[in-house]
């Protein structure tokens, strides 16, 4: 169980799984969504605050699940804060694509996210990595619809 780059349980993932930065609830919520995987009982709840604008100001998640699931929900936080909603959906697409193909995108936000590329090899774990991201996509689409009619 050496920490090779391909290794699923890189230090980053373990750190975030053990001590997530964004675990908890927001006081003010402008967008939220839940995701669950009945196959293993994983559950995630993501919350966003953006005021009246299109930029995410606050993020939190409540996640019950495996290390991959918790860490991926938490790293989502690093990616969304201070970003426009429509930028975020394209990052979510790229993240899902990476999990599906195993190929790391060149975009800079993937310096950290590349930690999850190895999940690709585990078909049955892919859902663990994408659960929070899929929830984020629904929440954000709903927020954009609310803002722009």
């Amino acid at each position, binding site marked *: 169980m050496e920490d090779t780059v391909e290794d699923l349980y890189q230090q980053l993932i373990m750190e975030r799984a053990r001590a997530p930065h964004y675990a908890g609830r927001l006081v003010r919520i402008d967008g939220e969504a839940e995701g669950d995987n009945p196959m293993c009982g994983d559950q995630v709840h993501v919350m966003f605050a953006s005021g009246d604008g299109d930029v995410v100001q606050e993020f939190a998640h409540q996640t019950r699940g495996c290390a991959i699931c918790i860490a991926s929900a938490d790293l989502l936080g690093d990616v969304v804060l201070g970003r426009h909603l429509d930028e975020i959906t394209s990052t979510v697409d790229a993240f899902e694509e990476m999990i599906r193909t195993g190929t790391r995108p060149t975009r800079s936000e993937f310096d950290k996210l590349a930690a999850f590329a190895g999940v690709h090899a*585990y*078909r049955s774990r892919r859902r663990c990595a994408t659960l929070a991201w899929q929830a984020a996509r629904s929440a954000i689409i709903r927020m954009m619809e609310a803002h722009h009619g």
Partner: protein
Amino acid sequence: MSVATALPGLDVERIREDFPILAERVHEKPLVYLDSAASAQKPRVVMDVMARTMEKQYANVHRGLHWLSERCSDAYEGARDRVARFLNAEREEIVFVRNATEAINLVSYTFGHTALEPGNAVAVSQMEHHANLVPWQMLRDARGIELRIVRVTEAGEIDFGDLERVFADRRVKLLAITHMSNVLGTYTPVERLVAFAHAHGAQVLVDGAQAVVHRRVDVRALGVDFYVFSGHKLYGPTGIGVLYGKRTLLQSMPPFLGGGDMIGSVSYERSTWAEPPYRFEAGTPAIVEAIGLGAAIDYIEAIGFDAIATHERVLTDHALRTLSDISGLKIIGNAQDRGGIVAFTLDRIHAHDVATLLDKQGIAVRAGHHCAEPLARRFGVDSTARASFGIYTTRSEIDLLAAGIERLKKVFS
């Protein structure tokens, strides 16, 4: 290569080397296998892929979380991708079943029980295999759905006048029809039938058990709603078959068998269903067989359907010509568009005796009603002998068949 076996497009002698069983002898005679419509022989590569899977990469599929299970799931889902490409479908539209028969029953138990209502009718043709007749009879008896039979002409083609009659009151909601008759060799004009049925508000299930072996099938181009076939007739393993269903249709259908892998979540009170195709694959699937089917499809696509169709054309023409020259021999059906299946009777010699006396000469043909009893009745016969051809069949084998028939006639003279 001998002149007798040099056929355009297909190097039959080389293909034969891929099929170990063709080197067998029967009753001390070289095997002449003319029963491919019942089940085709398997190329070495299919056996090898199956054995290799069990030797190197076997585990149960889905949610395995360990390496073997992940690799075996990749191979199993890869076979689904392979079938989807083969039919020009989406992977979500491909359900693995045991055989064509199960596929039709699946549609009957799900679509038949929810999309059809008492008072609706299902239409089938007079030339259906029992697999595409009995499930609809069972549905009729269970649910008060009418079953209508579209007549077949003396030539063995769909009687379009009768089709109009059957659809006239617009109560037919499903046309379930063969793509190729396993007795007459007739190909049905599926695109035309689909256009007709859709214009009359009916959906179409096509039984491709025979056709898929000989012709490229593009479910989008054909416009069919359901298409079914069996692996074992397509040079693949037994125990595996395919149901293609249009995505929206599959999504609207309730599950068929309940169990593992087909559920979303389960509580005692209520269970939710997985999305297609998984909704329809309960329990551990025929994993190794699905992978073997993928290999069979690779094999035949490498040969190519152009070559396969030409080969079938040449063989069928030769067979029709050669057999018609035999006095007392009568071929059933002579459709314009027909393929490599020839059913015949011999004056005053029962088909059973024909088959057994050919077998004594190493020639394997089938005899009986070929699971199409009402069709036999339509043509006024109890049973016929049937020779059917595959990619490994040669012209000289057809000549051996003709010579064999002449010999057996002597026993009866």
